[in-house]
Structure formats: C-alpha cells, structure tokens
C-alpha cells in the first residue's frame, strides 16, 4: 500500500460522498490506482446507505405524544430521566413531613395524663 494512497484516502472519501473530483494534485494518482478506485467505490456505496438512513425511522416511545400534549396543557410533564429521582424525592419529603407532624402534633391535655376511670369521671 503506497503512502500516496494513504494521503489520498480522506480526499477519495470526500470526493465519493460529494460526487466531485479528487483534488487536482492527487487526481493523476487516483485515476490509475486500483486501490484508490476501490476505496472510492466503497465510499460511494456508503454514501448511498447514509442517505438511505434518513428514511429509516425508529418508533418513538408510546407515551411521547401524551407527554408533549400534557406539557402543553400545563400539566407536569416530567422528563423520563427525572421520574425515578423525583419519585424517591417525593417519598423522602413525605416521610419527613409525616415524622415532623407526628413529633410536633398538638397534644390534648386531657389525654396526656392518666386515663380517668369511669367512676372518677362521674
């Protein structure tokens, strides 16, 4: 494999994709070099396949439309990557709130002491 082929390789690749001639200083070499011509042919095929990729579509997630339309309705459209952290965060905050409320709950003085017996109350 000649050094010129290696030098020409990027230009051959670009000329194949853009369907233009190779830059002038390398043109004489590539015109007579089987290796460069094979590379040109391979890259032309690749270019066609790249273009064909534009028509290949991956199916979007099933809930995508709902997420978009919910966001437009002003609902909380949570990005999927945030869902787990948000769920965990919500659970932690709820538990902390429950503990605080329990700890500082207003106490009924009648219930703090001894529970009076039925006779005492009468």
């Amino acid at each position, binding site marked *: 494999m000649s050094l010129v082929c290696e030098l020409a390789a990027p230009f051959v690749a670009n000329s194949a994709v853009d369907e233009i001639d190779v830059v002038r200083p390398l043109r004489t070499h590539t015109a007579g070099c089987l290796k460069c011509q094979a590379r040109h042919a391979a890259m032309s095929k690749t270019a066609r396949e790249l273009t064909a990729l*534009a028509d290949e*579509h991956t199916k*979007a997630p099933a809930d995508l*439309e709902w997420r*978009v339309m919910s966001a*437009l309705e002003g609902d909380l459209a949570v990005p999927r*990557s945030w869902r787990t952290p948000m769920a965990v965060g919500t659970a932690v905050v709820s538990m902390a709130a429950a503990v605080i409320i329990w700890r500082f709950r207003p106490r009924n003085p009648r219930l703090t002491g001894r529970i009076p017996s039925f006779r005492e109350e009468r």
Partner: protein
Amino acid sequence: MSNPNDPRQVENEKEKELIARAQQGDRAAFAALVRAHQNEVYTLARRLVGDPHLASDVTQEALIRAWRALPKFRGDAQLSTWLHRITVNTAWTQKKRAKKHAGVPIDELTAIAAPEGANHPAVAGELLELRGRLRAALDRLPEGQRQVVVMKDVYGWSHAEIAEVMDISVAAAKVRLHRARAKLAKDLEEMS
C-alpha cells in the same frame, strides 16, 4: 404541474391545513402533527445524542418548542426540515446540560429493515451487512464528527446550516466533516 389526486400532494395539503389550525391554537391539530412527525424527530434525536431516554426528552422538548414557535413558521421550508432544525438545536442544548449521559451504540438506533430496492436476497443481505457495519462505524466516530455526518450525509444539511447550529465557522464544519468521513471510510475498511 399539480395533480390534485397525487397522494403526496393530498398529504401536503392536509398538513398545511393542520399547521394553519395549530397556528391558531388548535391543540388537536398539533397532536395530529406530533403523531405524524414524532418518529422522525425521535430518530434524529437518537442519532444525535445516542441515549434513548435523553433522545426521548430531546424529542419532547423539541416538539414543545415547535408548538411555541409555530406562529412564526411561514411554510418556506417543509415542516419536517423545520422540525429537524429545532431538534438539532434542542439536542445541542440538552447535550450541554447532560454530558453525563454516555452514547449508546448506533446499532440500536434503527430497526433492522431490509434496505429499499434490495429485492434479491443476496443483495439485500449484503446491504444489510453494510448497513450494520455503517452503524457501528458511525458509533465509533467522536460525537462532534458523528453529528456532522448525520446532519450532512444523512439529512442533507448545508455546511452553513451545520455551522450555524453547532456554533462553529463554515470552514470548521467542513474540516470536521472531512475528518469524519475519512475516519468513517477507514473504520469501514478495517471492519470489512
């Protein structure tokens, strides 16, 4: 000459009508546009960012941005081209925000389908194999180079458009593309 029975033209007319209604604030019309374009927007997002969850978020945000910008859409370009531009911009912004997300093999980006026009099993097999190698080679490219190749060689953007979206000069976009293609060709050669 226009042919009122041409299905593509009928689709275009239908889309224009939906756009006009959506521009007036009709959400049902916009939902129909979302349904029509979500797969292509999502595919582009996945090709650009790799990670499927991030791509899903990019698609969602891009479509929301599209809704907000829809009154400014004048119809000079196709709606899909306009949506592509918004998606690329959104992906670019999201990428900056979420650098922690690693790329996902491009193998997963598209369902393996027989290439169009490849009716003969041998030809279809060869093209499928080439497409598989192509996806792997694209995956090997550094992110910036991959994005340039996707925008230029898959979606046919101009150098100027790429430069504008990536916030680089046209010359830099050309150089990046030149390098990306050279690397792509080299990787494909090594794989074969």
